[in-house]
């Protein structure tokens, strides 16, 4: 075997093992991170169906500031709260917007996205029922890409 091939094989092995160690932290457990965030907010309750709209660009260049609008679908009674979750962020719980008439069950804000992920909006009704909508957002440059995350 030539030294070139040896070198290539070694590099590939290194790359492979790096991937093995990095991937599970970065991507592997998004579902369980979301589950944990939902449990912290809602206990045993889980979203059933939708009833909430989530407006957000599907392709984002800069994760530092991403415009988002959460709006409950028309219907009575209106929800008492709208929640946002970003499972891949260091803290997946993004915000909770509690609302009472005459305010309408909708809000717009700007969020950070640490990377490509499914952003999840959850509406909560007075009887405790939850509804959710997820939008897959591709992020070219994550929030704080120029900084090192301690957690990630």
């Amino acid at each position, binding site marked *: 075997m030539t030294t070139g091939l040896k070198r290539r094989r070694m590099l590939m092995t290194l790359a492979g093992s790096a991937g093995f160690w990095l991937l599970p932290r970065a991507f592997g457990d998004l579902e369980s991170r979301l589950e944990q965030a939902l449990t912290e907010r809602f206990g045993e309750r889980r979203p059933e169906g939708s009833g909430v709209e989530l407006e957000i660009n599907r392709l984002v260049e800069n994760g*530092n*500031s*991403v415009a988002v609008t959460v709006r409950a679908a028309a219907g009575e009674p209106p929800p008492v709260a709208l929640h*946002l979750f*970003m499972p891949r*962020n*260091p*803290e*997946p*719980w*993004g*915000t*909770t*917007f*509690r*609302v*009472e*008439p*005459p*305010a*309408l069950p*909708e*809000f*717009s*804000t*700007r*969020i*950070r996205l640490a990377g490509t992920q499914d952003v999840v909006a959850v509406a909560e009704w007075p009887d405790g029922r939850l509804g959710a909508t997820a939008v897959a957002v591709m992020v070219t440059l994550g*929030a*704080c890409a120029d*900084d*090192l*995350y*301690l*957690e990630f």
Partner: protein
Amino acid sequence: MALSARVRLPERATRGEVVEIRSLVSHPMETGFRVDSFGRRVPRRILVRFSVRYAGRLIAEMDLRPGIAANPYVAFRFVADRSGELELRWQGDDGEELIERGQLEVSDP
């Protein structure tokens, strides 16, 4: 550091009209997850609560977390059902507070 806000509050409306509040606060929303160039963790400093009172009633209240972008922008709408004061209030995790007020005049159509 003193906080400052740019807000757009409705001043006049006819009863039943849907009006909008838009707000933007100058604030770094430091997440507490970043490290500086010496490897030291930059301490968290965020606004944690935004609340809106309209004619004495709390109509909206928002928990802000580190996932909200720097210089938090929040907009929402409500039905103008009576004349009264609008009070927007932001609270930070270090005890800082900012209040903006405006008057909404509601006339019958």
